[in-house]
C-alpha cells in the first residue's frame, strides 16, 4: 500500500477561515484535541477578503435596534426561506461574538463616544455593521488566528482533504494529501467540522479564490449528508468589470453604505425603479431624503430620513444592474456606474482605503475623482450542508458544518455583513457541538485499510494515464456551462442543457491526465477539485430546475413570481447509490411568538421613534 502518515484528534476541523477557526477555538477550549486543516496558509482563507463589516445589533448608533429587528431583516432578506432558529440565534448572539473579538484584540473603528462604530448596509434597517475601514475580514481572521495558535491548535497548512470515512454510519476520519509534498495523511477522529466555504470557482466571473471548489459540500454529500438550498447562489451586485484581468473582483457594499450612488449610462439613478413595492416605504423617496440620510450618517447623528435605494438587498441590486445593461443603458465595459467621488477625498481614503488602492492600482481609476464601473459577480452560496441550528450537526452522526459550507441561516438571499457574524456565531456552536459529541464517544471509530487504499489509488490515477485531457480544459468547459446556463436568470431549457453537459463533463473529469510529480502540482490539485465542483454544480442545477418560481437569488424567466407552496420547502440533494436525488423537504415552521414580530405594522425604517 502507498505510504501515509497518521494523525489522531478528537475533533478535526476542515477549513481555517472565520468559521473553522472559531469552531477549533471552541472545541479546544472544551478540552478536545483539535486538528485544523487548511488548503492554504493560515490567515489566507476567504474571510480575509470580507470588507464591509460584521452585522450585530449592538445599537451603538441607532438605539432602536435590537435582535428582533435584525432577525426580521434577515428573514425578509432571505425571502422567509431561512431556518427561523438559525436566524434567531444569529441575531441574538452576534453582539456577544463581536464583543468577544474585541476582547481577543480586534480593533474596530470607533464612535465619537469611544464605542464600536457601525455602518449601514443593504437590507439592514439600522446601522449595524461593526467594521475596520474596508478590511474587517482581515482584522477578524488575524484576531482568531492568534487566539487559536496560542491556544494550542494543531494546524495543518496546505493540506487538502479528499474523503471522509465512516464506521457504522458514524464519522471515523478523513484522508488528505499534503500540497507541498503530495504525501498522503490519514486523520483518525471522532468528529469533523466542515468549514470549507463556497463554490464560486464553478463560475468564471467570481469574487472567489481557487479554494472555493465546493469541497466541504461534496465531502459531506459523499458521506451521506443532505445539502439544501443549493439553487440559491448569490451574485454580488458590485464586482469590477474592467480590465479583464480583474473582472469579478469584489467592490465592497461598504461603498454604497458610505454613500455610493448607482447610475446608468444616461446618468439616471435607477435603483428607485427596482425597489420591491412591499419594501419601498423603507427607502428614501427622493434624492434630497437620501442625501439627508447620508449627511446624518457621516455625522453619526440620528435622522428621520430613510436610507438610499442603493441599500436594497443584493439579489435585487444585481438584477437591477443586469437589467439596465441588457436594456442598453450599461457603461462602456458593460456595467453600471458606482459613484462615491462626490464625497470628500480624505473621507473616501479613510473609510474605503483598499477600494481606493484596488481601483488605482488595478484599473487606473481614482475613485475620489471618477465613478467606478461595476457589475454582478458570483459571490456566495446560501445553500450547503443541512445542519441542526443549535449544534451545527449534519445528518451524518459525528459530522458538523458551519459558515458558508452550511445552509439555513440565510435562506434565499444573504444580507451583507451577515456572513462574518454567521461565521463566529455558528463556528462557535459547531465547535461546541463537535466537542460534546466527541466526548460522548468512548472508542475511536475504525477505518478499513481497503477504503484508505482505494481513495489513494483514485487520487493517483491521473498520473498513470498515458493520454487524456488537461484538467484546466475541463474546468474551463464547466465554468462556461454554469455561466451560460445557470446564471442570475434561469430557464428550464438552459438548466436541462446544463445537466446534460455536466454528465459529459463528469466523464471527461474522470479521464484527465496530470503531468509532473506530486510536489506542489496545481494540475493534480485541480483534477481532484474538479470532482467537487461537478457535484455542487449538479446540485445547483437540479435544485434550480425544481424551484419553479423566482425567490431571492434564484430568478426564473419562465416562473417570474413567488409560489407560496414552494415557500414552505427547501430543495434537498442527497446521494443515492452513485447518483444524486433532489426533492423538496418541509421548511421548519416558525413559532407563534416570532411570527408575531412580522404581524405588527411595518416600521417606518429610518424614523427615530
Amino acid at each position: 500500500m502507498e505510504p501515509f502518515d497518521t494523525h489522531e484528534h478528537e475533533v478535526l476541523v476542515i477549513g481555517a477561515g472565520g468559521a473553522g477557526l472559531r469552531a477549533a477555538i471552541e472545541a479546544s477550549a472544551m478540552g478536545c484535541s483539535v486538528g485544523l486543516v487548511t488548503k492554504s496558509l493560515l490567515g489566507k482563507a476567504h474571510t480575509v477578503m470580507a470588507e464591509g463589516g460584521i452585522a450585530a445589533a449592538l445599537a451603538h448608533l441607532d438605539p432602536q435596534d435590537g435582535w428582533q429587528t435584525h432577525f426580521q431583516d434577515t428573514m425578509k432578506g432571505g425571502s422567509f426561506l431561512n431556518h427561523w432558529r438559525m436566524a434567531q440565534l444569529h441575531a441574538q448572539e452576534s453582539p456577544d461574538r463581536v464583543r468577544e473579538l474585541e476582547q481577543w484584540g480586534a480593533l474596530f473603528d470607533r464612535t465619537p463616544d469611544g464605542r464600536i462604530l457601525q455602518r449601514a448596509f443593504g437590507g439592514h434597517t439600522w446601522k449595524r455593521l461593526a467594521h475596520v475601514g474596508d478590511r474587517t475580514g482581515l482584522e477578524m481572521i488575524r484576531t482568531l488566528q492568534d487566539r487559536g495558535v496560542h491556544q494550542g491548535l494543531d494546524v495543518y497548512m496546505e493540506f487538502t482533504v479528499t474523503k471522509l470515512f465512516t464506521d457504522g454510519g458514524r464519522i471515523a476520519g478523513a484522508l488528505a494529501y499534503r500540497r507541498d509534498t503530495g504525501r498522503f495523511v490519514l486523520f483518525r477522529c471522532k468528529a469533523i467540522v466542515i468549514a470549507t466555504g463556497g463554490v464560486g470557482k464553478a463560475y468564471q466571473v467570481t469574487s472567489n479564490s481557487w479554494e472555493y471548489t465546493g469541497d466541504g459540500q461534496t465531502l459531506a454529500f459523499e458521506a451521506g449528508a443532505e445539502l439544501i438550498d443549493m439553487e440559491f447562489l448569490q451574485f454580488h451586485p458590485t464586482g469590477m468589470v474592467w480590465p479583464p484581468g480583474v473582472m469579478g473582483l469584489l467592490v465592497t457594499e461598504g461603498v454604497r453604505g458610505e454613500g455610493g450612488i448607482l447610475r446608468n449610462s444616461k446618468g439616471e439613478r435607477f435603483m428607485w425603479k427596482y425597489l420591491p413595492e412591499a419594501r419601498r416605504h423603507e427607502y428614501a423617496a427622493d434624492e434630497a431624503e437620501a442625501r439627508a440620510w447620508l449627511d446624518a450618517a457621516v455625522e453619526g447623528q440620528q435622522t428621520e430620513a430613510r436610507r438610499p435605494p442603493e441599500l436594497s438587498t443584493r439579489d435585487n441590486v444585481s438584477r437591477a444592474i443586469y437589467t439596465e445593461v441588457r436594456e442598453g443603458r450599461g457603461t462602456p465595459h458593460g456595467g453600471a456606474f458606482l459613484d462615491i467621488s462626490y464625497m470628500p477625498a480624505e473621507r473616501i481614503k479613510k473609510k474605503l482605503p483598499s477600494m481606493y488602492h484596488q481601483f488605482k492600482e488595478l484599473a487606473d481609476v481614482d475613485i475620489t475623482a471618477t465613478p467606478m464601473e461595476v457589475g454582478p459577480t458570483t459571490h456566495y452560496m446560501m445553500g450547503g450542508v443541512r445542519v441542526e441550528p443549535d449544534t451545527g450537526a449534519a445528518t451524518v452522526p459525528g459530522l458538523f458544518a458551519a459558515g458558508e459550507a452550511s445552509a439555513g441561516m440565510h435562506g434565499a438571499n444573504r444580507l451583507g455583513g451577515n456572513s462574518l457574524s454567521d461565521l463566529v456565531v455558528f463556528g462557535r456552536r459547531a465547535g461546541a457541538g463537535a466537542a460534546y459529541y466527541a466526548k460522548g464517544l468512548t472508542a475511536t471509530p475504525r477505518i478499513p485499510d481497503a477504503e484508505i487504499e482505494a481513495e489513494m489509488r483514485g487520487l493517483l490515477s491521473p498520473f498513470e494515464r498515458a493520454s487524456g485531457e488537461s484538467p484546466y480544459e475541463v474546468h474551463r468547459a464547466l465554468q462556461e456551462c454554469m455561466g451560460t446556463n445557470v446564471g442570475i436568470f434561469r430557464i428550464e431549457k438552459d438548466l436541462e442543457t446544463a445537466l446534460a453537459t455536466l454528465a459529459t463533463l463528469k466523464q471527461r473529469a474522470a479521464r484527465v491526465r496530470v503531468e509532473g510529480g506530486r510536489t506542489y502540482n496545481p494540475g493534480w490539485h485541480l483534477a481532484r477539485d474538479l470532482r467537487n465542483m461537478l457535484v455542487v454544480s449538479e446540485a445547483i442545477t437540479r435544485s434550480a430546475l425544481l424551484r419553479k418560481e423566482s425567490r431571492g437569488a434564484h430568478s426564473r424567466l419562465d416562473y417570474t413570481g413567488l409560489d407560496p407552496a414552494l415557500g414552505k420547502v427547501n430543495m434537498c440533494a442527497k446521494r443515492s447509490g452513485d447518483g444524486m436525488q433532489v426533492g423538496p423537504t418541509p421548511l421548519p415552521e416558525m413559532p407563534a411568538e416570532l411570527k408575531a414580530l412580522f404581524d405588527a405594522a411595518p416600521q417606518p425604517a429610518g424614523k427615530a421613534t
Partner: protein
Amino acid sequence: MSAGAVAGAIAGATAGAAAAAAGARVKAEATTAKREAVLRVYRGDASGGQEVEYQVPVETGMVVLDAIHWIQAHQAPDLAVRWNCKAAKCGSCSAEVNGKPALMCKSRMERFAPGEPIVVRPMKTFPIIRDLVTDVSWNFEVNQRIPPFQPRAGAEWKWQQHDVDRAQEFRKCIECFLCQDVCHVLRSHELKHQFAGPRFLVRIAGLEMHPIDGVDRTPFLKDSAGIGFCNITKCCTEVCPEDIHITDNAIIPLKERVVDRFYDPVQMVWRAITGK
C-alpha cells in the same frame, strides 16, 4: 435573445453583461492591439533549477499572476504558484519580479517595456518547495512565540479613533512576507534564529500600541526578537504593498523602548534612585 444568452450575460456575469452592452465593449477591445510578453519563470526545487521562457498573450490590465495562470492553463500545468485572492488582500502570491520583491497580483504587465523579458523567481529568503512556492513556515513559528494580547485588568473598553489609528496601520499587514524577504538580516546574514524580522516587529508594535494591552514585550523585543539587528535601512518599508511605515512607525518606536529600558544611563540612575 435566448434565455441562455440572457443568463450567460450575467453569469459569465459581466462578461456577458457585455454581450448586452456589447457594441461599446467590442470597440474598446479592438483598439487594444494584442501583444505578447516574454516571461522567464524559475522552474525547479531544492535540488536546483533554471529559468524557463514562455510567450504569453497580453490583455489590457493583465498582471503577472494572470500570465502565470495562463502558462499553467496552456503550457505548464504543473507550474507551482501560491495565490488566493488576486486582489492584494491575502498576501499569498509573493515573488521576485525582475529582482524586486512584489505581489504578482499587483504587478501590472503594462508597466514593463514591450519586449523586455519579465523574470519571475521565488522569494530568496525562504527555502524553495517548487517553482515559485517557498516554505514560509518559519514565519508562523515566530508568530507563535510572541506574547499574545492580554487586556489590562479593569480596563474600560472605550477609546477614541485617534487612539487606534496607529495600531490599525500595523494591523493592515497581509503577511505577504515581502519585508522578510528583502530584509538583509534575514536574506544575506540568515539570522532567522536571532531576528524576528520586520513583519513581526510590526505585529509586536500593533500589540504594544493597543490602547488596553497590558503585556510588557520590551525584554522579548531585545532578547528574542533581536530588534538590535535592524539597522533601519528601510528596505522593508519600500516593498510593503500595504504602505505600512514599518521602520518609522513600528520599528523605531520599539527600538526606543528597548533603549530607554536597557541602555539609557540617565534612566538607569533614575530607576536606581526611585526604585521603579
